[in-house]
């Protein structure tokens, strides 16, 4: 039980802390801003891909596995 309690406390601490506390790297202003710029495009491209595979799967074509191999596959849900 004490171990479980420790984990709960640890998790709560982790959630309460801001992301900045964990960063020992300088992320680079340009690199952060660029992600904001390309995020929309990347997401649109990903969504189109998901729907495309949904359509082709209607014709019995198996969608290729994601390179990220994280079982998200093509339902678009995380």
């Amino acid at each position, binding site marked *: 039980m004490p171990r479980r309690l420790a984990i709960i406390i640890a998790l709560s601490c982790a959630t309460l802390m801001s992301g900045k506390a964990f960063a020992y790297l300088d992320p680079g202003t340009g690199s952060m801003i660029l992600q904001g710029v390309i*995020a929309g495009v990347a997401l649109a491209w990903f969504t189109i891909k998901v729907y495309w595979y949904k359509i082709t799967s209607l014709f019995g074509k198996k969608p290729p596995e994601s390179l990220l191999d994280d079982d998200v596959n093509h339902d678009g849900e995380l």
Partner: protein
Amino acid sequence: MNRLSASFRDPSGFVFSHNGIIHRQVNSRYAPEYEQLMASGLYEALTQKQWLIRHEEVQEPAISADANAYKLLRPEQIPYISYPYEWCFSQLKDAALLTLKIAAKALQHDMMLKDASAYNVQFLGSQPLFIDTLSFAPYVEGEPWIAYRQFCQHFLAPLALMAHVDISVAKLLVTQIDGIPLATASRLLPLKTRLKSGLYSHLHLHAKTQQRFADSAEDINTSPVENRKPRISKKALRAILESLAVTINNLKWHPPKTEWGEYYAQTNYSPGAADDKASLLRQLIGSIASPLETIHDLGANTGVYSEVAAAHCRYLVSQDIDPIAVEAQYQKRRAAGPTNILPLLQDVTAPSPAIGWRNTERDAFTKRAHCDAVLALALVHHLAITNNTPLGDIAAFFADLAPYLIIEFVPKSDSQVKRLLATREDIFPDYTEAGFERIFGELFTVERKQGVAGSDRTLYLMKRRVDADNSGSMP
């Protein structure tokens, strides 16, 4: 406790060696993140897939005296530490894809990689493995990826340069310990790479955006300019990871045909002589009485003889100067499954130097490569004749590395040596079998010696003389 100098950047903990075993201390400040990694199921998921190194928590009062200590971990031991500038194209590519897969998996467990250094990946045989257990941080909703720039510098830039400019550009990684600056890569890459959406956005546009904000000292977290720091949904972040993975995966290296690439086809060994050399090698290694942990095969080409020797030791590091040969060997072994052979790039005439802070962050080849036996087949003529290295210096180099040496002497009558001497003056009066034996005899005793049938070459098993051990680290 011997703290390793490679792990000073991240205050989450550090790596040290105790009685020859690598340990990792988790500092108290990293306790919440470490517990989240372990409790969220992420550690289990990653280790089950053999993506992340396994560890056990240990309690050894004698070594956990540090006031900052939260936990002491003993990770699975990596037999030989290698660096990105010693990897072939596909090794760096596999390490990149592994890093992205781990980031995506972490995201599913509400965590994220807080760094994406190529040095966080090591190879166990042909299997890439993420070794930095302390690289995980809680995912904060809306945050961009902090390690995006580092990933692009450590992986995307060198891979793009290898694929689109020249394979040897990867050597820039020796001088650029934090990866190749994107501005440098962008300037070197051909125009056509700007037409590829992945390379354009993650590399060229990335470099431009960096330059645009390079002089801005304002903190984007507290900047009065509204919305300076972008908010990115989790789905969009995963889409960026996938886009990076597709970009990396589309990079291919098509090696030009070289004389080395087809070496086995045009060597002066007949198939019979090659078999004879293999069985001779088997006999010589088999006659070494002491158990062999690690063997270094230097000048291994595509690793045909490494495979013969690997049956007699726990781990074999198979090294060659030719990126094509190493690439061919890695791809073959990766496809074949688990192996105790690690293929690497290494130029014996100028081995990897010690680099980084105080020259101790990444060790030199000569510091890492101490082993039980060295294999030097069809190598000595390249060192002695192509590189003009005196035979005594070659012997001393091998004597520093291992107590046993299996070496092939290739005489001047051999067609390969004739070719090397065809365009230059023969200034090597000592380069004879007798001269070789006399000079190597100062540091080694010849245990066995046998000619390779069908050729003029001779294979030797040599044992280092007790008084010739200058390495200071061998038993």
